[in-house]
């Protein structure tokens, strides 16, 4: 490579590394959400305090999002809900990410029996509608957040296994991986030090959009009475409560729904930005 092209390549890398605008915006919004989830509960009071003298009040200065039939402030509950729903996002994605990436890496690298077993399990898991199989497992284990996390982990890992296996199959044929193996490095070292850093970005990108799907799933199960249990101020649960009052107090369900929409937009900006940043070659 001549000096000129090397310099040019260097400059291009530097230019590419400039942070995409949607990543900055998405990350800022998410930071705000995390701050709200962490600090909000300290500021707004108890989400379960009932005040029957002020039930079904429309939004006002005292109750910015109105109150429900038990006189609980919707604003207070939505702020507490941010804490719960972000936790749902984390715990639905993290186990699936860890299990799936590990199995995908092993399947792609070693092939053979482990690959066959992993991929057959993947085939079976994707045959079911995701929500239906998760509901079925929760039905058997019993409603509640912990069982929901278990159910999601049992099925959700397959997406990560598929992505990482495909990436590993490609990466292990590239020169750097061949070289590492020819040097006689142990499999463990080739896998963890050479392949993993190169294949994991795809899974991270997927995870950044999977978080919001996890939150949707968690709040859907809350809505169906299978996730978080009352009196938890989980957003899906609040929305379910508000259905009975759609004609008298629509604010009960409207505001937690808006919160989910805003959170979804924050995550999708962040995810798109992250994809642009980690895979600059696909950016126009």
């Amino acid at each position: 490579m001549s000096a000129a092209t090397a310099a040019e390549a260097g400059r291009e890398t530097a230019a590419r590394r400039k942070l995409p605008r949607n990543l900055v915006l998405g990350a800022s919004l998410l930071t705000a959400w995390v701050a709200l989830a962490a600090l909000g509960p300290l500021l707004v009071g108890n989400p379960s305090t009932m005040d029957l003298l002020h039930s079904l009040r429309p939004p006002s200065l005292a109750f910015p999002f109105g109150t429900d039939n038990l006189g609980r402030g919707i604003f207070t509950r939505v702020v507490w809900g941010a804490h719960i729903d972000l936790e749902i996002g984390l715990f639905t994605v993290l186990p699936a990410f860890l299990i799936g990436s590990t199995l995908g890496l092993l399947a792609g690298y070693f092939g053979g029996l482990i690959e066959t077993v992993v991929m057959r399990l993947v085939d079976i898991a994707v045959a079911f509608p995701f929500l239906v199989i998760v509901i079925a497992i929760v039905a058997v284990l019993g409603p509640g957040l912990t069982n929901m996390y278990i159910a999601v982990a049992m099925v959700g890992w397959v997406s990560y296994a598929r992505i990482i296996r495909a990436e590993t199959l490609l990466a292990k044929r590239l020169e750097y991986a061949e070289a590492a193996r020819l040097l006689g490095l142990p499999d463990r070292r080739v896998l963890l030090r050479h392949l993993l850093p190169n294949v994991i970005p795809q899974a991270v990108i997927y995870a950044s959009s999977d978080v919001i799907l996890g939150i949707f799933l968690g709040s859907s199960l809350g809505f169906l009475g299978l996730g978080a249990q009352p009196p938890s101020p989980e957003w899906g649960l609040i929305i379910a409560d508000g259905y009975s009052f759609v004609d008298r107090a629509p604010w009960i369900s409207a505001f937690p729904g808006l919160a989910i929409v805003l959170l979804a937009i924050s995550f999708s900006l962040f995810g798109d930005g992250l994809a642009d940043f980690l895979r600059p070659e696909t950016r126009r």
Partner: protein
Amino acid sequence: MTRYILRRLLMLVPVAIGITMVVFLLVRLIPGDPARTLLGIHATPELVAAMRAHLGLDRPLWAQYLIFVRHLAAGDFGHSYYYGEAISRLVLTHLGPTLVLIAYSVVLTLAIALPAGLLAAARRDQAADHLVRIGAVVGVGLPSYWIGFMLILLLAVTIPIFPVAGYGTGLPSHLFDLFLPALTIAINLAPLVLRALRASLMEALASGYIDTARAKGLPRRVVLLGHALPNAIVPAVTVLGLNIGYLVGSTVIVETVFAVPGLGQLMINSIGTRDYPVIQAVTLVLGVLVVLVNLATDLMQLLLDPRVRREVA
């Protein structure tokens, strides 16, 4: 092509084995005696003993699985102790509303996605395109149980046109009552189809045969609808097929929201009553439904796209 179809049908065998295995193991996840679990807490010892023999619980697990499959093949899903009815009958009566809802949602999804996709592609980078794209981003970002709530608030409570819930009797009444439920699903689904359609239309519009059609002096409408659309429709159908699992999952929520007497509602109600054989049966039927729709999508591609036909020939 016949060989391709046969091979595609043969691929269903391992999937069918996988699905039935998962559904079989589902009830075994519950600690305790499966016979007692399936019969509920009020079962007499005699009944439990009879059930144990019926399921072959004294035999190894693989033999139990074979018995389970043999029962399924005979249409025997077991008996619901809550409804006091054969589950096969229960599933059949609840299947209709779910199928109507799915078909209706697909129709509404296309009714939104086709015109919007055409508009966005024809007016690329203009205001209409931006509007459609923003609408698409918001549409996927809305949870279905909340779309349902807002639709009820808007079109059933504030402006009382549609019913809050129900299914009605007779097809016209079904279609009227299911409009909001189907629209709820379509609002989630249309953005995905629309994005695929817009992208493939753009690609088609940049091809040589479009230049030829334009050079011939054909009107814009004919170029767009007659030349570009037929070539761009396949990816949109594929995206729709890929998301059928998502669609079926949504029906569970939407049926609960709008009290549609379909399989999803049956499943959720059965969780409350711990009617495990029903949960098992509905999970199986919805899984099979998705597999069949995926099959139909693959065959549809053959029908729509001569290039796919040539590839598999």
